[in-house]
C-alpha cells in the first residue's frame, strides 16, 4: 500500500527451535500479542524491516501531499478549498507521526529525508500519477484513501508499539478523507453531463493504480512471510486487494459509474468479485521511476528541501546566538 515492496531479510522464517534464546523470547512475545517497545531487544532484521516500512509509509504521506495539493488553489468552492487544505495538512501530520515512530528505531528524520531525495527510499507508486481534473481529488479520496484504510486498519495491530499507535491516530483521519472523496464523486455524478464524464474519467484512470497499491501478487511477494511472522504485516496483498474490490464495486454502482474492467464479475462461489489481470509491468516501471510524475514529484520535494535550507539554518543560527547570549549573561 503505502509500503508496497518492503525488503525483509530475504531468508526463510526460522522455527522456534532454530532461534537463539533472545529471538525465542522475542517471538513468543509477538505470538502472545504483546507490543514490542523501542527499548526492547529486537532482531536486527525486524528493526531494519520496520525502518524501511515506516519510512516508506512516511515518505508516501509527504509525497502524497503533492498530487492533491495541486488542486488547493483551484478548488471550486470555499468549503472544498478548506476541506482539501485540511486533508493535505493531515497528510503532513501523518508523515510527522510516522517519522517520529521510525526515529524510535534509531534513524533520524533528516537521514530518512536524504534517502528519499537521493532516490534510495521508495514511496507508494500511486502518487506518481497526475491529478488532471477536480474529479481526481474525489477519486483519490474514495479509492486511494479507501485502499489505504484497507491496509492500515490491520496495521493498528502491528507488533511494534509506536507504529501501531501512530496507525490508530492515522486511521481515524483516513476515514474522514475517504468520505470527503466519495462526497465529491456524489456531487459530480449528480451534476452536469460534463461533471459526470469527469467522474467516470477519473475512475477509469485511478482504478488500476489503486489496485496496485496493495503490492505484487502473493506468489511474487518475496518479503511477506517474515513480516507476517513478526506481526508487522497481518494480511496478504491479494487478500486485501480482494477485500477492496468487493467493497468498492458496489460503491461505484451506487454512483452510477462503470468500473473499467470487462472481466469484472460476481463469483457466487467465493462470495467476491473476479477481476481482470493487473498490468504489473506498469507497476514495476512506476516503482523504477518511470511513472508519469516520478520526476516531477521528486523535483518538487528536492526544491522544497533545497529552497528551505536557509530557513532551517537561520533558525539554528538564532538558537545558537540565543544560547550564547544566555551564557554570556550568566
Amino acid at each position, binding site marked *: 500500500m503505502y509500503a508496497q515492496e518492503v525488503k525483509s531479510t530475504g531468508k526463510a522464517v526460522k522455527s522456534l527451535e532454530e532461534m537463539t534464546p533472545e529471538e525465542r523470547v522475542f517471538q513468543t512475545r509477538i505470538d502472545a500479542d504483546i507490543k514490542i517497545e523501542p527499548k526492547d531487544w529486537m532482531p536486527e532484521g525486524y528493526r531494519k524491516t520496520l525502518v524501511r516500512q515506516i519510512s516508506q509509509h512516511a515518505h508516501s504521506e509527504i509525497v502524497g501531499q503533492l498530487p492533491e495539493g495541486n488542486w*488547493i488553489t483551484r478548488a471550486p468552492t470555499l468549503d472544498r478549498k478548506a476541506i482539501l487544505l485540511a486533508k493535505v495538512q493531515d497528510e503532513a501530520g501523518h508523515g510527522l507521526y510516522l517519522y517520529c515512530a521510525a526515529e524510535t528505531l534509531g534513524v533520524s528524520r533528516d537521514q530518512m529525508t536524504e534517502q528519499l531525495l537521493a532516490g534510495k527510499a521508495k514511496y507508494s507508486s500511486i502518487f506518481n500519477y497526475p491529478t488532471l481534473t477536480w474529479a481526481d481529488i474525489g477519486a483519490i479520496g474514495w479509492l486511494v484513501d479507501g485502499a489505504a484504510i484497507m491496509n492500515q486498519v490491520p496495521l493498528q495491530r502491528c507488533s511494534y508499539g509506536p507504529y501501531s499507535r501512530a496507525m490508530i491516530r492515522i486511521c481515524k483521519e483516513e476515514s474522514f478523507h475517504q468520505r470527503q472523496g466519495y462526497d465529491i464523486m456524489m456531487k459530480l455524478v449528480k451534476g452536469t453531463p460534463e461533471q459526470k464524464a469527469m467522474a467516470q474519467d477519473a475512475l477509469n484512470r485511478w482504478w488500476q493504480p489503486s489496485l496496485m497499491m496493495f503490492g505484487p501478487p502473493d506468489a511474487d511477494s518475496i518479503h511477506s512471510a517474515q513480516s507476517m511472522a513478526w506481526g508487522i504485516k497481518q494480511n496478504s496483498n491479494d487478500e486485501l486487494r480482494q477485500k477492496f474490490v468487493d467493497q468498492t464495486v458496489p460503491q461505484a454502482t451506487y454512483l452510477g459509474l462503470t468500473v473499467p474492467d470487462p472481466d469484472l464479475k460476481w463469483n457466487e462461489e467465493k462470495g467476491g468479485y473476479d477481476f481482470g489481470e493487473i498490468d504489473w509491468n506498469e507497476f514495476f516501471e512506476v516503482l523504477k521511476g518511470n511513472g508519469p510524475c516520478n520526476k516531477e514529484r521528486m523535483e518538487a520535494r528536492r526544491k522544497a528541501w533545497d529552497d528551505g535550507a536557509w*530557513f532551517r539554518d537561520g533558525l539554528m543560527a538564532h538558537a545558537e546566538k540565543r544560547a550564547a547570549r544566555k551564557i554570556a549573561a550568566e
Partner: protein
Amino acid sequence: MTADDGFDETLFELALRMGDNALILGQRVSAWCGHAPVLEEDIAMANVGLDLIGQTKLWLGLAGEIEGKGRSADDLAFLRADRAFRNCLLVEQPNVDYAHTLMRQYLFDAWHLPMLTALKQSAEPRVAEIAEKSAKEAAYHLERSSDLVIRLGDGSVESHERMQAALNALWPFTGEFVAPDDVDKAAASRGLGPDLSAIAERYNETTAAVLRDATLSAPADAPVRKGGKEGLHSEHLGYLLSEMQWLQRSHPGAQW
C-alpha cells in the same frame, strides 16, 4: 452611506474588505501546502490558510447578506472580477520565497489583530461577532509570525538578508491598511469600524518593536502603495483570480 433602498454600502464595503484580505492571503499561503521548508511549517502554514478561508466565509457571507441580492460567499469569491475586489495590495503580492511569505504574513497580522480587536466593539453585532471569533485566530497568527520574523531576522547572514529584502519589497504596501479613505471614515463615524489612526499607532509600535528585535530596518521614506481598497490592484491579482476562479467559471451554474 445607506441608500434609499436600504442598501448599506459602507457596511457592505467593510465586510468585503475584511473578507477579501482573508481570501486573497488565504489563497496565497495555501499554495505552500506540500512545499514548505520543513514539515512543521507545512502544517502551521496550512493552519493559517484554513483560518483565513474560514474567516472569508463569514465576512463574504455577511457581505452577501447586506447586499441582499442573493449572492453567496462563494459567488462573491469565485464570480467577481478583479476590479470588484477590495483587498489591500499587500496580500496579493506573490509568495516569491518563504521570507517574503513570512514577512507579508507578519505585516498583515500586525494590522489584522488590532483591527479585529477594535471591530469587536462594532455597532453592528454581526461584525462584532465575526471579529470576536477571528481575533483569537489572528492573535495566534501574529504570535507565530512575529516569532519567526525575529528568529530569521536575527538568524544567519543569509536569513537576515532575505528577511531584509522581503521587508524592503513589502513595506511600501503597509500604509494602505491604516490610511483611512471615505469608506473607513464613514464606518468610523457610525461606530461600525475603528478610527484607523488609532490602529496606525498600534501598528507602528508593534512593528517597530519586532523589527528592532529582528535586527531589521523598515526602509525610510518608502512611498505608500495603495489602491486595492478601491479596486485598483497590482497585476498579480488577475493571475491569482484566474487560477482560483477558473473551475467555477468554466462550468457556469454547476454545483460542487
